[in-house]
Every structure is written in structure tokens, then in C-alpha cells.
């Protein structure tokens, strides 16, 4: 048997695993792939109904406004939800054959990324239709990349810590709920009292959603300094998560929590 280096072995495994999970997802609901698009659409419908119709808030481009907030938020929340248990759930597998533990959150991150690329294609189509394209759209890619780093960092860290503190499984969903309300998905930053606006932007998801809207709706350039800060912070956090996963690589299968 040939002995290729470990990273190549597990990179192949991750790619195949993501492909097979994508395929398997289609068989697990009647509308299969359509849910990638229906999920954000339904969330937008809820916010539109509550804030646009009932409370009569929101500008004339409220749908586009919601579209950018909801798609960015769902990518973050769904990937984190899937990643946090990814190592803990695989005890059975890791007791039978050695697998580096970063493989599990990495699969979840790649799966989420693939779906999001699909969603983004549609997002661009809809925004072109609703708002008309703008030259600042090219900055979208940069914000997207920073968000990917942020998602990877938080996901790796959660996957690394949850096996030690399984109680987090109950804590993360309400925190995500809080994060959703504090990320300005359905309201602009002007709703926040001026004194608290800089505090609000400390939440990287809130800041990134503002940047998405600036480049996609308001033809403004992104705040590069802010993006660099979020990117650097994410890289540092990602390093922490990976370090934990490597450090406790052969401890995770022993945990009996």
C-alpha cells in the first residue's frame, strides 16, 4: 500500500465526504436543494411581514436590505450550529481509525461554503433585478472572504471546545439568537443610539452586514480598516481553534462526556 502523506489522505476524505453529504441531503427532504434558497426566503418573509407590514418600518428597498442581512447571517449561524457538535458526534468513528479532528469542522465549513456560493449567485441575480448593479459590487468578494475566515474561526473553536464542555450545546443556540437580534439583520445601525454604535460594530457579524449593504446597496466603499481587523482577529482565533484540535487530537476519543 502506498503511503501518501497524511494531509493528502484527509484532504481527499474531506472533499469526498462533502460531496456525498451534499448528495445525501437531496434525498432527505421532498424539496431537497430548493431548501438552500427557501430557507433564506422564508426568513426574509417573516421579517418583512413583522417589520415591513405590521410595524411599517423599513425603506423602499427593505427586501434587498433584508436579503443581504439574512443570507450572511444564515451562513454564519448554520455553519456554527453544524460544526459545534461535529467532533463530539464522531466518537464512534475516531475510536476505530485515526482521523485528525480538524477534519470534522472542516467538512462542515466546506459544506456551508458550497451552499453559500450557490445562494450568492442568486443574491446577485435578485439585486441586479431590484437595485441595478454598481461598480462597488466587486468589493463583495473581499467581505465574503473575511466572513469565511470568521465562520471558520468560530466553527473550529466551537468544535474544539464542545467535547470538553458539552453544556455549550445548550448555550450556543440562545447566544446565536441574541447575535441575530444584535446583528442588524432587519434594522439599520441608525436605530441604535449614537453612543452605542461603536459598541454595536464590535459584533463582527453586525459590522460585516453593514459593509455588505454599503457596497451592494449604497455604492459605498467598504471600511477596509474594519475588514482588516475582523480578518486578523479571525485568523488569530482560527489558529487557537486549530491548536486545540491538534493538541488534544488523541484525547478527544477518550472523552466520555
Amino acid at each position, binding site marked *: *500500500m*502506498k*503511503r*501518501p502523506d497524511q494531509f493528502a*489522505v484527509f484532504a*481527499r*476524505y474531506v472533499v*469526498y*465526504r462533502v460531496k*456525498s*453529504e451534499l*448528495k*445525501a*441531503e437531496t*434525498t*432527505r427532504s421532498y424539496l431537497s436543494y430548493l431548501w438552500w434558497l427557501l430557507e433564506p426566503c422564508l426568513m426574509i418573509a417573516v421579517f418583512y411581514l413583522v417589520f415591513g407590514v405590521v410595524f411599517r418600518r423599513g425603506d423602499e428597498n427593505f427586501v434587498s436590505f433584508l436579503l443581504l442581512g439574512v443570507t450572511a447571517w444564515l451562513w454564519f449561524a448554520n455553519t456554527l450550529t453544524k460544526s459545534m457538535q461535529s467532533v463530539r458526534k464522531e466518537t464512534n*468513528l*475516531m*475510536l*476505530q*481509525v*485515526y*482521523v485528525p479532528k480538524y477534519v470534522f469542522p472542516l467538512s462542515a465549513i466546506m459544506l456551508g461554503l458550497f451552499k453559500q456560493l450557490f445562494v450568492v449567485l442568486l443574491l446577485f441575480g435578485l439585486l441586479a433585478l431590484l437595485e441595478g448593479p454598481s461598480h462597488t459590487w466587486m468589493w463583495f468578494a473581499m467581505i465574503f472572504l473575511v466572513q469565511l475566515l470568521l465562520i471558520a474561526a468560530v466553527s473550529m473553536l466551537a468544535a474544539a471546545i464542545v467535547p470538553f464542555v458539552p453544556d455549550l450545546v445548550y448555550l450556543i443556540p440562545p447566544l446565536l439568537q441574541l447575535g441575530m437580534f444584535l446583528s442588524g439583520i432587519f434594522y439599520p445601525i441608525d436605530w441604535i443610539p449614537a453612543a452605542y454604535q461603536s459598541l454595536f460594530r464590535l459584533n463582527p457579524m453586525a459590522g460585516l452586514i453593514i459593509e455588505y449593504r454599503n457596497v451592494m446597496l449604497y455604492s459605498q466603499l467598504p471600511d477596509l480598516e474594519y475588514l482588516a481587523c475582523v480578518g486578523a482577529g479571525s485568523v488569530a482565533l482560527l489558529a487557537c481553534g486549530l491548536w486545540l484540535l491538534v493538541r488534544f487530537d*488523541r*484525547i478527544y*476519543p*477518550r472523552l*466520555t*462526556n
Partner: protein
Amino acid sequence: MPFAHGQLLIRARNLSVAYTRRRSLVRRETYTALEDINVDIHAGESLGVIGRNGVGKTTLLRVLAQIILPDRGTVENFGATTAMLSMQAGFDLFATGQTNIVLSGLLLGYTEAEILERRDDIIRFSELGEFIHQPLITYSAGMRARLGFSVCYHMQPDILLIDEALGAGDIEFRRKSAAAMREKIKSDQTVVLVSHDSNTIRSLCDRAVWIEDGICRMEGATERVVAAYEGYVASHPRAHVSFLNLSNAT
């Protein structure tokens, strides 16, 4: 086989493993699974690990495979891949049998092309027929075990770790798979076989290690070790498993 017969593949020294169980927020108890064990594994040999249930045999396999880290001691692996037999490792219940063959093979270090070369043999051996195109969730436990065995049998690692059962599945398949595995063990395959059954060890292993309560009681030629084990089991009633003991006491 890339290794010369008799070449040292794994050297394990002074292995100790203790499991900690949390009984409440602050109270913990430890349970010693292995204490100061030394094992060498050479290419082509069949090493038997004999001992009663709950004495740390499975833990030893996991440490040797470098799946878990021992609390003390070292395991050196000189480049051999290891995996458990009858593993249904990496099986995704919602993917088809075909896909799962590839997933398992990739985990064992094979490329997709190498796996596809062996796929027909695997499917034939597993006797799953058309079911191979169905998701695993539709399989019975026996069918899953048949697939797991067939994959591992055709794409075995350099060192095969066998925990108790040689075969898998229903009686008929169990007989066939155990026979195939016996053939394989007697050939040049390197095996570590764990069992409480002295006949299995006696018929298949060149060398044996006897473990009792996490301690290596004896190591050497199979016949001598197995005879000592049998004598001990006949004269000693089963010791209580420590975990049960402790939970009764607290």
C-alpha cells in the same frame, strides 16, 4: 507489503491508561485500564492479546493504533497504517453502500482509483447485491456489518486490529468471513487479535500477551501463555469490574 518480514512496526513502552469518570460536578473517579505495558509488533506476525472482559484489552488496541494517547508511556510507529476490523468507520447512514465503500477506503489511506479497482470484489464478497445502491439507513445491522467487514477485508491496513470477533453478520456470513479472516491471518498479514477465548488465540497467533486487570501477566509463545491463562481462569472466580465496584461503594 512494503515491510520486510519480522521488521519492527510498533514499539510500545510502559503504557498506562486511566479513565476518569465524572460522577458529579466535582467528584471524579479513576479506573486504571492499563498499567506499565510493553508490546512490540513485527511485520507478518499475529499477536494475541488474551484476557477476560474488562481488563483493558480494547484500550490496548486503541493505544497501539495511536487512536488515544496513553497517560504515560510511548508508542512508536515505524510507518505502518492501523485500523480496527469490522469497522464501519466513516459510514454515513444517508449515503449509498457504494459511496460508503469509498469513504471508508479513503480513511484507510487509499486513493479513489485504488478503491474503485477493488469495489467489485468488495460488493461481491458482501453479498449485498442491488442493495449496494441504496442508502445505509435501509440496511439491517447485519448488512451494515457485512459491508464493513468486506471493505476492511479488501483494503486492510498494514496492521489489522481485531477486537474479539473474526467475522460479522448473520451465521452464514459470519462463518464465511471468519474463514476468510483465518486465511488472511495465517498469511503474511500483521494482526493484533484480542480475545477472551483461548481457542481462537491458540489456533491463530504466534505470540501472546496475557493481560489481567490492566497488568501484563505473561508474554511469550502462545501455548505457554494460553495455558497459564486457562489455569488462572479455572482457579479464580471473575473479579468485579472496578467501575461497578466503585459505583456501589459511593
